[in-house]
Every structure is written in C-alpha cells, then in structure tokens.
C-alpha cells in the first residue's frame, strides 16, 4: 500500500442509516417517522455538543470528568439569567438574546472549568481512581451550589418566540427549534473539525492525544494546552446545556446528572477521544432514544444500554477508536 492511502472506514458512519431503516417499518406512518427522525437529529446534535469536549479532554490527558454533567446545568442556569434581562419581541432581539445566552454560558462554564481544573483535576493527573472520586465530589458541590443559588424548583427557560412553532410540509411538521439546535450542532462539529485540522492548537491537541511527552519535548506546555482544552470542554457543555434547557423549556440542577449517562454512552460508543465518533455516537443514541421512546417508552434507556453493548461487541473500543496510543 502506498503511504497516504488511508482506507476510509465508512461502515460505522452508516450505522445511523441502518438503525433508521430497521425502525421505519415498526413505526409505520411516514410523518411520525420523519418527525421522530428530525427530533433525533436535533437531540443528537445537542448531545454531541455536550459530549464532544469531554471526549477530547479524555483523549488528550486521559482525564474523565465525572462532574461534566454539572457544567451542562451551569450553562442552562446562566441562560436563565441572561433571559431575565434580555429584551425580546422581534426576530433580531430574539436572535441576539439567544447568542448572548450561549456566549454567557460558554464564558461562565469556561471560567468555572478553569477553576475546577486547577483546583481539583491538576493535583490528581494520571491517577484514575482519585480523578473519579474528586470529580464526583466536584459535581456534588456544583449541583448543590446551583440549588442554593437558584432554589430547588426548576426555572423556566422557554425558547424565544422566534424559535417556537413548527414548519409544516404537507403532513409533516418540523419544530423550528429542533432545526436551530441541529444547525448549531452541525456548525460546532464542523468548526471543531476545522480547528483540529487547520490550526496550530488543533494540531497540538491531536499530537498530544497520541504522545504527550513528545509534544512537551518539542517545547510546548502540555498542561497549559490541557487546561485550555478543559475550559473549552466545559464551555461546550454549557452551550449544550443552554440548547437542552431551551428544548425542555426549563433549567434544573439535576439535569446534568441525567444527561451524563447519555453522554457517557455516546463517547463510549464513539470511541473515547474521537470527535467524529462522538458525533456518530450522539446521533445513534438519539435515534434509539426517540424510536424506542415511541415504540416502547419504558425501555428507551435500556435500549441505549443494549446499543452500547452491541457496538462494543462489534468494536470493543468504539466506532472510531483513536490510533495507537
């Protein structure tokens, strides 16, 4: 084989189509199928936003933050604060306040992520057991602080008027907000891929995922790089939290803990550390959640666990495992 010819591994990329094809006959009606599928794609996009940073940080430093879910909730609450003060009414103001909410969530979560990383994670680099314990502790503290600051009742986080309602094509209705979430998720995915392939910091991250020591021996501070990646991961979790909060029309302190389970399934399926795998994993998990949610609502989560088992039996390290480490 000549160097450079890289056999493209397309099979995993087809799995969402396979899942959709299998589910379609069971669902029966076309409009329902389309609605469910669009809902899945939107949910997948949101899960991707929440999970992408986590998987990247793990790939780079072997650090898995069990408190990642707490950042999702922090993002949603940051958005409620913005929406309290933001004007609304016209399309322009709705858009502006949406962007402001996303930005606020990213900034707040990035900052909290910085403190969290320096205070909790840096002292236990390379020690998995302590990492798990201390990040569990961190998640408890953040969640409780949210409860102390915002109260125990969920806060309202309805999408602005511009995003409400649905577009109707014949019998098929597609909620506008789902398209917004889907669009933003895909945009972030493309941006992330561009950063990873076109920028120096992206190259450093990919290089560091493979060999931290050599990156350091070339003269770069891997710990600072990781802190930056961790902040970005936290910011992405926050953005995902805003999207999810608007989707559910509320912000709850416990939302992160619920989502973390799905996020874990996503990154395990995708292959720890892989961004593309994460995108696929998120789509698959969302498809299963929606199809199963329609066909056998009680078994939705169990079906996703079975999906994880099936994927791992097929590919023990996930759909797109990272190369030799």
């Amino acid at each position, binding site marked *: *084989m000549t*160097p*450079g*010819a*890289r056999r493209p591994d397309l099979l995993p990329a087809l799995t969402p189509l396979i899942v959709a094809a299998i589910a379609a006959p069971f669902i029966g009606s076309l409009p329902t199928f389309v609605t469910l599928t669009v809902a899945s794609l939107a949910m997948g996009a949101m899960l991707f936003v929440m999970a992408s940073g986590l998987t990247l940080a793990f790939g780079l430093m072997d650090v898995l933050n069990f408190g990642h879910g707490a950042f999702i909730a922090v993002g949603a609450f940051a958005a409620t604060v913005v929406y309290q003060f933001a004007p609304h009414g016209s399309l322009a103001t709705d858009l502006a306040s949406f962007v402001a909410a996303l930005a606020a969530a990213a900034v707040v979560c990035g900052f909290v992520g910085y403190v969290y990383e320096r205070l909790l994670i840096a002292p236990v680099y390379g020690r998995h057991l302590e990492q798990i314990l201390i990040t569990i502790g961190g998640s408890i503290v953040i969640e409780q602080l949210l409860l102390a600051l915002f109260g125990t009742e969920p806060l309202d986080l309805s999408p602005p008027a511009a995003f409400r309602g649905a577009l109707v094509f014949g019998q098929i209705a597609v909620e506008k907000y789902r398209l917004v979430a889907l669009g933003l998720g895909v945009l972030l995915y493309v941006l992330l891929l561009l950063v990873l392939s076109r920028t*120096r910091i992206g*190259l*450093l991250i*990919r*290089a560091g*995922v*493979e*060999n931290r*020591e*050599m*990156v*350091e*021996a*070339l*003269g*770069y*501070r*891997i710990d600072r790089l990781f802190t930056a990646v961790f902040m970005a991961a936290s910011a992405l979790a926050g953005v995902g939290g805003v999207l999810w909060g608007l989707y559910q029309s509320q912000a709850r302190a416990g939302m992160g803990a619920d989502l973390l389970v799905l996020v874990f399934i996503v990154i395990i399926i995708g292959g720890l550390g892989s961004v593309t795998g994460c995108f696929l994993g998120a789509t698959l998990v969302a498809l299963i959640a929606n199809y199963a949610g329609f066909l056998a609502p009680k078994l939705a989560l169990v079906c996703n666990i079975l999906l994880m088992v099936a994927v791992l039996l097929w590919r023990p390290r996930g759909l797109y495992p*990272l*190369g*030799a480490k």
Partner: protein
Amino acid sequence: MNLTLDGVHTHIGRYHILQGVDFQAPAGLTTMLLGRNGAGKTTTLRTIMGLWRASRGAIRLGERRLDGARASDVARAGVAYVPETMAIFSDLSVRENLLLAARAGAMDEARLDWIFGFFPALKTFWASRAGSLSGGQKQMLSIARALIEPRPLLLIDEPTKGLAPAIIDGLIACLKDVKERGATILLVEQNFRVAREVGDRVAVMDNGRIVHAGEMAALAEDAELQGRLLGLSLDSHQ
C-alpha cells in the same frame, strides 16, 4: 554550547537507573554515547531532556542549568530530541509534524530543501499521514523534526535503526553538515561504523555509569579496548 553532566542520578519508580553519570559533550563536536543494551543511554538522554527528573547531580548547557527543568523548557533552551521510539505523530501529515517542530511558526524553505536533500522521501510523502510511512521513513521524519529549526544541542537516540545503507550514508552526511553549522550533537549509536565516522568524542556507559571517555578515533584504533568496553557484539553490527 558545552553540555556537562555532573554526578547525575536518575530513579525510575523504585529502580536506581543512573548512578552518577559524569561526562561532557564539547561545543561544536559530535559525542558518541555507547554501551551495551540496558546500560542507561536512553535514560541519560531522557534525563537531559527533562523527561525523567534527575534525583541528584547537575546538567548544564553552557552556563544554564537544565536539571529540574520541564521538558518544554529544556526544548526552549535549544535542545532537540530524536527519541529511540521516533515518536512521530502518526495521525498528522509529514508537513504537520514538521510544522509543530518549527516553533517560530513558518518553516524556512531553504532549510527544508536542505533536509529534503538528505531525506528525499519526505518530499515525496509531504502530504501523507505520518502513520502510513515505512519504519525508515518515520525515522527520517523524526530526525527532520529535530533539524527543522537550528538548535544548539541535538540528542539523537539510535537513528540508524532500520535504515537502509544508502540512507545511512545520507544521515552521516547530514550529521556532519549539522555539525559544520555549529551544533553540538550527542548521539547514541549501536552501529560502530557510523560511530567511527561521525564521532569526535566518545563516552561509554555501563550499569548507569560512564566507564570510559575519550577521543572516538582512539577507541576506533584500539580493538582490545573496544572488546573490553563494548563486548564482542559490536563487530556483528558492522
């Protein structure tokens, strides 16, 4: 710049690997670091590079103390490293590998052409994924990464491993040229022909200590000394 090691000890976990390493790699010369397998050569380079921490002793580059510094600071002090494992970034292209090694940002075209002169394969596979290169090509890339910007000190660990004779000749020419340009080189090498050809000075290690230091030429002449210091295995490498 002179590289000086003064009573350097290194522990890895519970093991005491380097047990007082003293030698000097004089400025502008190529110093060979020789010794049996497991003597501690790689550990010495890694300790200089800051990838292991010296538990005792001093490492100096010119006037500057390197012991205790992070690897990134050692690199920024002007040390380039070609590890025994090559450690190329296989997910990145050849170009991207070199780009990261060029900390200044852009790569110097003239210098690149100079490198291509020794290792033409790198030009051919410029845009390929480094992971798909052959073993020898990866070795070339690893060396090129250390050369892409001028550095005062090069630490090179067994660069000829797996290289075809023609490429070894290119490497020898390259190393001589690098020295001409004023760099100090510390080279670990099992291939005695290469050692004899590029080495000015030599330090021989055993069991984590330097057991002999002197002129490379003198060692090359003295078959008895070679046999005593390096064992018979050397001849089979030629």
